[in-house]
């Protein structure tokens, strides 16, 4: 992130225009954090106030409150400005409690593990 020179005044890629806005931050591990940007630096390190993690499993979602977060820039994939006039999520999605989403996450993990182990058992067939 460069400091804007005089010719860059309309061309800044700094996060300054996102300050005090509610943002969606995508992390490298796939997590989605929402919060208000309070601070940032040239490495895209960021401070989010009132942060929450939006966990999505299929059509279920849950916002888990986290509080004040400092995010190390190397983990940041994307920082998105949420358009307040649009729905944040498609209407068919259902909001559930934290315990329910954890159960759904576990079910999804078990299904992937099962798929993985079955595939491993079939590997000797050399089908693909």
């Amino acid at each position, binding site marked *: 992130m*460069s400091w804007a020179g005089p010719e860059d005044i309309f061309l800044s*890629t700094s996060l300054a225009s996102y300050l005090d806005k509610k943002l969606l931050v995508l992390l490298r591990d796939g997590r989605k954090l929402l919060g208000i940007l309070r601070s940032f630096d040239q490495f895209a390190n960021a401070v989010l106030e009132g942060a929450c993690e939006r966990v*999505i499993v299929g059509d279920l979602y849950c916002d888990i409150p986290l509080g004040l977060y400092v995010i190390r*820039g190397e983990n940041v*994939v*994307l920082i*998105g400005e949420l358009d307040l006039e649009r729905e*944040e*999520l*498609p209407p068919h999605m259902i909001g559930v409690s934290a315990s329910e989403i954890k159960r759904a996450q576990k079910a999804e993990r078990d299904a992937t593990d099962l798929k993985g182990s079955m595939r491993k058992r079939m590997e000797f067939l050399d089908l693909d």
Partner: protein
Amino acid sequence: MLFFSYFKELVGKEVTVELKNDIAIRGILHSVDQYLNIKLENSRVVDQDKYPHLLSVRNCFIRGSVVRYVQLPPDGVDIDILHDATRREARGG
């Protein structure tokens, strides 16, 4: 610096940025910096149904380190100018 200057020329054009986590985002290039961080305006995810959380994101900042490809409009590139600039850079650098 070559690609930084090159992307500066593309500001205002529509590009599709493909990230290392396979998400592809199409939008108007708003700005770029020395790290090739990209800011897109009017952005839309290519596969909207797969990424419901990005539904209402219209402007975004993409960290340069996570970009895999930047897909450009075919007429957005003057190949000859790019060739010359590259040769100059190769000679000087």
